[in-house]
């Protein structure tokens, strides 16, 4: 049943499933129609569903998101694309002051079932204003949900689950993952995917060390784990998948067993998701099992530069994770 496809095709397929099934679902964003989106993710959907349901918008991020809020609270299920996640800065009011708060603030009288797709991350030479990983902000905001798939199947399933969710969901997509391929079982309907599944899952198991990541960081973590295995160090790699809510149970269980925690992500370290993972784990019963201080391997604390060498140096690389893991193993055995 599963076929091999890229993450962008998997997302596209999820939109197709949802739109075919539920007339309330529609898409909107900049150049998502005939252009197919800056990354081709919506390619073909205009032809299939027409311009009323695949809506090209003006370059107006504030109203793209605000419009979605208005549509969502009156019965629709908008799925919105920011062309690059960086442009969400222009839409923080509708996202944070409106979407995240209305259900609570209006005493439960409205729900805001909308999905905001955010293609983010570096590695494409797009530089400072087109390469950010801003998920820490959203994970800090009560009222939002934030998911960050690392595989084509999860991208497919998490989008379906997000569309099915009564709350506003931010879908963190990493641009470099769009072309990454994997087996995908295309779901037959929205109901096939249960939102509650979006917890942390292991991508690899090993008893020496726990590596935690999400989104593209999982690929880096897995490659690092393979390199470490060549040295005889076996790491568990956990994929958070959801950043809000954050499912730390499996992380705590794994760290309790391994005693060593490494968290890696592309966003800068200070007040990033990695800080929350570390703080959550050390605040738990795993505390007593930690053999060495938990370590974070994050993006360098500067804007994403343009020159390839500088960009590479700003994004955590496999060798950075390996080196940090080796230091962790060397300490205090």
């Amino acid at each position, binding site marked *: 049943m599963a076929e091999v496809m890229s993450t962008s095709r998997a997302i596209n397929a999820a939109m197709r499933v949802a739109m075919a099934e539920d007339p309330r679902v*529609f898409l909107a964003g900049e150049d998502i129609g005939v252009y197919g989106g800056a990354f081709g993710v919506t390619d073909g959907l205009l032809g299939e569903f027409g311009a*009323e349901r695949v809506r090209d*918008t*003006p370059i*107006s991020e*504030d*109203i793209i*998101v*605000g*419009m*979605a*809020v*208005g*549509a*969502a*609270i*009156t*019965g*629709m299920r*908008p799925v919105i694309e920011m062309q690059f996640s960086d442009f969400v800065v222009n839409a923080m*009011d*509708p996202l944070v*002051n*409106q979407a*995240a708060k*209305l*259900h*609570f*603030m*209006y*005493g*439960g*009288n*409205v*729900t*805001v*079932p909308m999905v905001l797709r955010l293609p983010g991350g570096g590695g494409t030479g797009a530089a400072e204003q087109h390469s950010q990983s801003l998920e820490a902000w959203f994970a800090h905001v*009560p*009222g939002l*949900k934030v998911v960050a798939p690392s595989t084509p199947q999860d991208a497919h399933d998490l989008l379906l689950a997000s569309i099915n*969710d*009564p*709350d506003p969901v931010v879908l963190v997509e990493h641009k470099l993952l769009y072309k990454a391929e994997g087996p995908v079982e295309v779901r037959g309907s929205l109901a096939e995917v249960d*939102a*509650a599944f979006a*917890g942390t899952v292991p991508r690899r198991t090993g008893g020496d060390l726990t590596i935690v990541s999400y989104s593209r960081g999982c690929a880096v973590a897995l490659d690092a784990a393979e390199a470490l295995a060549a040295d005889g160090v076996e790491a568990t790699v956990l994929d958070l998948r*959801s950043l*809000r*809510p*954050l*499912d*730390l149970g499996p992380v705590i269980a794994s760290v309790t067993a391994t005693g060593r925690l490494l968290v890696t992500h592309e966003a800068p370290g200070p007040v990033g998701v990695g800080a929350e993972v570390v703080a*959550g784990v050390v605040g738990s019963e795993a505390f007593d099992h930690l053999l060495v201080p938990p370590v974070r391997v994050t993006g360098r604390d500067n804007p994403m530069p343009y020159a390839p060498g500088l960009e590479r140096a700003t994004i955590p690389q496999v060798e950075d994770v390996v080196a940090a893991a080796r230091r962790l193993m060397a300490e205090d055995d």
Partner: protein
Amino acid sequence: MPRVDPSTPEGARAALTTMWTIRRFEEALEDLYSRGLLHGTNHLSIGQEAVAVGVCGALEEGDLITSTHRGHGHCLAHGADPMRMMAELLGRVDGYCRGRGGSMHIADVDAGNLGANGIVAGSMTIAAGAALSMRMQGRDAVVVCFFGDGAANEGSFHEALNLAGVWGLPVLFLCENNQYGMSMSQDSSTAGGSVAARGAAYGIEGRRIDGNDLDAVHAAAAEAVAGVRAGGGPALLEAVTYRYRGHSKSDRNLYRTLDEIESWRNERDPVDRFEAAAVASGRLTAEDVDAVRAEARDLLRDAVQRAVRSPEPTVDDLDGAAYAGRSTAAVA
């Protein structure tokens, strides 16, 4: 067929009742506040009653509104129960938002009020989305988006009018121009000096009207709503009015003169004017007017009495309340 037609005796009576209800509601808040029973801040719409009542009266069942931080009038004019509004302002469970939202965030979704908003121009993009939603669902409804003169300088105003324009959305943008955005006069904040004139930038014919003349407001709104409903795309009205009270509790009124306030209150008060017009035209008698005033007073007295008896929410009420579905707490 509009819900209130002030050209008829019944409609005139209904409109006047709502105007008085609004005014008495705001006055009751001042009273509660001065007695230390109301916390937070609030923005009163005394002096602006004709806009809310004229516009909402021109709507039909199923039409929607979005409102602002100065939204008590819109809310009442669109059918809200003063008791539940009062309970909200007092932070009680019978409030429209279970006490979570307060003055700036009353939503009465059942009546078609999608909510007040503490963010200036914050509801403008939401209104456009609601209008799109109505169209996509094949519903005939019109959305009225109330906003202030100050809000017209926010980027959201621009994006909302542009999108509504290119997509031909069924929304009436209703600028309640009370001539100040907090302390800034419209002249000092608004290049070009007119919100109505900005409509042209989006292919929308904007109209400026006397916002203190209930009959004029109603007529202009009814016409605009009819055009929007007929598929003519968005409309824009700028209703010129005035607020007598300070912007909010912290206002010392340093940016305008007492004379200015007095002249509006004495010469152009919308309630006075409508009473006079309705009596002169024979729609109402002087006795009707007295009866309406008494009715509004009693209504509010009763609303306050019942609202204060409503219980305060307890902390359990917060559990999972930020989410309609599975909450953070459930997993983390």
